[in-house]
């Protein structure tokens, strides 16, 4: 038996029953980003310099490239989850809200793909 009113059901109001997985994914990606974020900053600090050669050398090592791909992908996912909550909380107009949610998702997916592809190109030695 559902406790939702028939009118509420027709209007699509109330819980969509998907909130828990969003909440959980945000925490799991947060925990992953604590480790990946620390790794990223420590790696930057231990680069021999900011030159092109040193960055390419760094991302050529298997460990760095795997972690860099993970960092880009997980950061994009976590950013999307977070921006979604912010947009849903502060944007009242339904149309603007939907437009912003879709725009965030598109921009982050495209950026994540560009970032992952860049790391892979370096890792596979496409970049001189």
């Amino acid at each position, binding site marked *: 038996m559902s406790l939702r009113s028939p009118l509420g059901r027709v209007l699509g109001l109330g819980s969509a029953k998907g909130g828990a997985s969003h909440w959980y994914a945000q925490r799991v990606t*947060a925990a992953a980003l*604590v480790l990946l974020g620390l790794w990223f900053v420590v790696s930057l*600090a231990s680069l021999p310099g900011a030159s092109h050669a040193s960055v390419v050398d760094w991302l050529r090592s298997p460990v760095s490239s795997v972690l860099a791909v993970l960092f880009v992908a997980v950061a994009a996912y976590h*950013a999307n989850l977070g921006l979604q909550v912010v947009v849903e909380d502060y944007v009242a107009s339904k149309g603007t809200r939907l437009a912003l949610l879709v725009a965030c998702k598109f921009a*982050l997916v495209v950026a994540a793909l560009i*970032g992952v592809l*860049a790391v892979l190109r*370096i890792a596979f030695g496409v*970049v001189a």
Partner: protein
Amino acid sequence: MAQPERPLSPFLHYRWQYTNTLSILHRISGVLLSFCFFLLVYWLAAAAAGPDAYAGALRCFGSPLTQVVLLGGLLSFCYHLLNGVRHLFFDLGYGFELKTARKSGWAVAVAAVLLALIVWFVLDRHLGRVA
């Protein structure tokens, strides 16, 4: 017509405290970091595009305006990371007592600024030369 006494919406009568400043800062820093994510991707894509594109990216990162954005990004990164860990402890059910939450809030805010300054100093000294 006289209005009946109605309960007010919480934001109309809650006292502003630094704990809710910390909370809203977590969101603001998160939004800033989302923008910085695009800078990270630009940096990686420039490295993958070759030395010339990479040199252009370094020039862009070295400009005063971008440096301000990067410093803001670094502050956001340190704060969001430390306060994020604080929130993960909350989610596990620890540190919710008023006293503990206030103390950890102060600790996180101070530690974030210190950490950001240290990382900025290290990165600037370390990477600045070659860039």
